[in-house]
């Protein structure tokens, strides 16, 4: 059976290749630190399951330490000039779009189609990991077609990938790091503590106040944790179920659906949601780390008001 391990190995080899190529790139004055960063990440993807928990923890400390002091520098992989790109666009035209679409197309086909593939009686692809494995397959297929069609130098995909990865830099592991922090916070009982604080300060005699506390709590907790999934169980168990549902007779499905969407408003407002708000600023070369959040903020605040109003209007009456 093909499991997610194959995909992790593929990613690990890619990061390891970035490490080697970085080491041979004299344009980056901090190439040793940058190379060590990619090497550690490659190690984590290739051997994370064999390092043991403490070993993985040391990898985390290493990545944080390398990012902390003095930065990682920027590599300058060989690529094309602006004029060559305009020429390339003229030559290849819309075929470049079709190549880019191979990834999501194969990912979708794989997600839907893997279920049908079996070796003997066991499934060919781990049914719990289909979407991730399908994504990796999409990348491999797109890469193969692009190599055959465009005929670039053999190292080009890795060098061009390194160009983008260097640009994203330490922010590339930020979402994963925050997910890990969320798990440690959960073990340390941070969520439960926040739940206690919220229910202690809450006026509990008005349905409107309960709805507002729940939606604002979802948004606020998400702001801190960077992920509405971390906020939802705490706020629902601490505020939503006891007050909105049990005390005031609200509908749990409506409450939960609009509560999660209120949390998403928080996601749009916080640097903790790094994959949505920080990674694009690095990829788009925006010097202001808050640029994407600023562009989203009015929508997020208005949608929080809308979700709160919708919940108040619907949850007690349907």
């Amino acid at each position, binding site marked *: 059976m093909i499991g997610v391990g194959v995909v992790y190995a593929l990613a690990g080899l890619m990061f390891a290749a970035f490490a080697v190529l970085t080491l041979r790139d004299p344009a980056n004055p901090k190439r040793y630190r940058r190379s060590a960063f990619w090497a550690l990440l490659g190690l984590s993807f290739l051997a994370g399951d064999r*390092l043991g928990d403490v*070993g993985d923890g040391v*990898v985390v400390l290493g990545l944080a330490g390398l*990012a902390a002091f003095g930065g990682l520098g920027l590599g300058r992989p060989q690529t094309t000039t602006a004029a060559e790109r305009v020429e390339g666009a003229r030559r290849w035209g819309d075929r470049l779009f079709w190549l880019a679409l191979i990834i999501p197309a194969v990912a979708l086909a794989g997600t839907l189609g893997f279920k049908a593939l079996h070796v003997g009686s066991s499934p060919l692809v781990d049914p719990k990991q289909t979407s991730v494995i399908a994504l990796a397959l999409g990348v491999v297929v797109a890469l193969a077609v692009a190599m055959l069609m465009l005929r670039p130098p053999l190292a080009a995909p890795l060098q061009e990938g390194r160009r983008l990865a260097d640009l994203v830099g330490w922010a590339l592991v930020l979402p994963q790091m925050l997910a890990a922090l969320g798990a440690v916070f959960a*073990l*340390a009982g941070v969520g439960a503590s926040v739940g206690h604080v919220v229910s202690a300060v809450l006026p509990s005699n008005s349905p409107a106040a309960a709805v507002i506390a729940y939606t604002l709590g979802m948004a606020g907790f998400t702001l801190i944790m960077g992920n509405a999934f971390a906020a939802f169980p705490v706020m629902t*168990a601490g505020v939503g179920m006891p007050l909105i549902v049990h005390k005031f007779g609200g509908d749990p499905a409506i409450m939960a659906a609009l509560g999660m969407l209120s949390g998403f408003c928080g996601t749009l407002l916080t640097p903790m949601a790094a994959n949505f708000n920080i990674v694009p600023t690095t990829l788009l070369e925006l010097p202001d780390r808050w640029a994407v959040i600023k562009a989203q903020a009015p929508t997020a605040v208005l949608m929080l008001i809308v979700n709160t109003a919708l919940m108040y209007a619907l949850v007690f009456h349907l």
Partner: protein
Amino acid sequence: MLPLIGIAVLVVGFAARLNPLPVIVAAALASGLLAGMAPLAVIAHLGKAFNDSRYVTLAFIAVPVIGLLERYGLQARARTRIAQLSMATTGRLLILYLALRQITCALGLLALGGPVQMVRPVLAPMAEGAAQVRWGVLPEPLVRLIRAHAAATDNVGQMFGEDIFIALASILLIKGVLHQEGVDVAPLQLSIWAVPSAIAAFLIHGARLARLDKRLERLAAAAIVKGEEPRDA
């Protein structure tokens, strides 16, 4: 209450503009230690959770393909393609993308968008190209504003589209949490209540994008008057 110190560490670290990675490690250590864990145990928990969360980073395995296509002019193609449409403005293009992103996410096709696959290589160059047709070479602040709005529109479209799809992680999480609370709901009961918010999000963000066109016009006019240093096309 003591574990809440970890949150304070995070907030202070972000406010002081320190590198987030060591701040996160410090926050984990603070919360773990104050909850009574041994230092080595906190590091082990952090390492295990990091290892278990590797799938979060997997979106980046697409960078060799995207980088390769950029090498052969994907972004340049996106810019010229949009320039051929005389109706296109930055705001209208992003409104159209917002609708497409919401609809495709509602069908579960999240992988069609995102900052790596779509915003950097295609959407942002198109949004810039639509503005370049009007005002020629754009001043740097305008370029940044347009790029930020391209990323923001991708995010808004995903957030207020995906919960309409019934098989999504967040819908399954809601179902699971409610089940623990003794309430059983069908996924369709949940996703149907995401529809009013999705419509509201389209109207609100779409109206803001329409105003973005006017704002860009003002900024471009002001930049031309001031004779600001233009950016290389």
